[in-house]
């Protein structure tokens, strides 16, 4: 069992070593060094496991693009029910009024609270959509030419990764409202189907951003130099 494992690794390594000339001369990969994906320690790829955190070393995470694409596509599919179904239902004097993500934003605009409308619109509509589009686009740009520099692409990816969790605001709003607004017989708020779907969207987009290997951006730029 262990023997086959080792031989597998060694063939894997030798195939990587042959490819090293593909990496540009100023990258670590050109010198047979790989940055650890967990602790960022740069060490020789022949060690197979990082000497500091014992995670597996890769020049580029395996199937990074495929995983990112699969997760983004799933997230896009989940985003449809998240917008169609009500995110919560407000029952006031036995009069139930379900509200979707978009109708919540419109309600705030009608009430004149533009700032809150803006916050919810940004967190629940703008960020998830932009994030999914950016991730798709980053996957495409790894094998297509773009005018943007490597620096800009890296920055875009870092921003995408950073803002991901802020979409969770809407879920927390629903959780707090459900717990807080509870006047027996007069007003009750119940969570809706869309809140589940939306939570899945946020988690999937966060996972997709984590799966994307930023080093793929560097490769692409070097090929076109």
């Amino acid at each position, binding site marked *: 069992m262990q023997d086959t494992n080792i031989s597998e690794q060694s063939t894997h390594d030798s195939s990587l070593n042959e490819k090293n000339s593909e990496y540009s001369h100023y*990258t670590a990969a050109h010198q047979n060094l790989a940055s650890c994906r967990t602790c960022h320690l740069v060490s020789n790829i022949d060690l197979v496991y990082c000497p500091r955190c014992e995670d597996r070393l890769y020049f580029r995470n395996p199937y990074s693009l495929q995983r990112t694409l699969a997760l983004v596509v799933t997230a896009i599919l989940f985003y449809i029910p998240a917008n169609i179904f009500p995110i919560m239902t407000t029952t006031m004097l036995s009069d139930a009024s379900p509200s979707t993500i978009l109708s919540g934003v419109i309600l705030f605009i009608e009430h004149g609270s533009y700032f809150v409308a803006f916050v919810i619109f940004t967190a629940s509509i703008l960020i998830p959509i932009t994030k999914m589009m950016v991730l798709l686009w980053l996957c495409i740009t790894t094998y297509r030419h773009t005018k943007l520099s490597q620096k800009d692409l890296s920055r875009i990816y870092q921003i995408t990764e950073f803002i991901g969790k802020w979409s969770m605001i809407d879920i927390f709003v629903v*959780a707090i409202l459900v717990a807080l607004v509870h006047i027996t017989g*007069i007003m009750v708020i119940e969570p809706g189907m869309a809140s589940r779907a939306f939570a899945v969207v946020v988690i999937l987009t966060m996972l997709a951003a984590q799966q994307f290997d930023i080093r793929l951006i560097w490769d692409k730029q070097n090929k076109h130099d």
Partner: protein
Amino acid sequence: MLIKVPELSENQSLYCPGCHSHQFTLYKNALVHCVAYSLCALILFALANSFPFLTFEAQGQSRVITVAQAANDLIEQEFFFLASLVYAFVLILPLLYLVCLLSLTMSLLAGIKVHSPILIGRTISFFYPWIMAEVFIVGVLVALIKVISMADIVFGFAFWAYIGFVVFLLLTANIASRHQLWQWVDDARH
């Protein structure tokens, strides 16, 4: 881009010469500060969970909730998935992060041998992106703006404690950057 990391003196930051992105900052007395901040965060976390969070008063009825109530009521509505998410992102993961970090930093400070530092380091690296305490605060504020016109809201002691907890959590995370964290793990191993 492969470069040799220069020797940094205290409170200096390192930026990548290629893409100018911030890499890490070496803080003065990082270990002591990190222990202090994370202890503060832990104490405030305990307070935030033992006092009422918010009180909702309308039509002669009043409802007092705690932080955990936000998740408990979702369980009552049979939204187990959402409830577990709220529990994990707002309460369990921040607590796990602080406990792991403290067990590492305090043993380093006291010179005690740390039990499996690599496991601690990897747990922290793995769960850190999923801590959403600061997002929860913004969510609470948005929810309050929604209901403030229809009822009286009283901020409980736990509300302020939770905000303080988030502030100290962010201060801790700022010091214990990935670079710093793994340096501590390295120190703990030798």
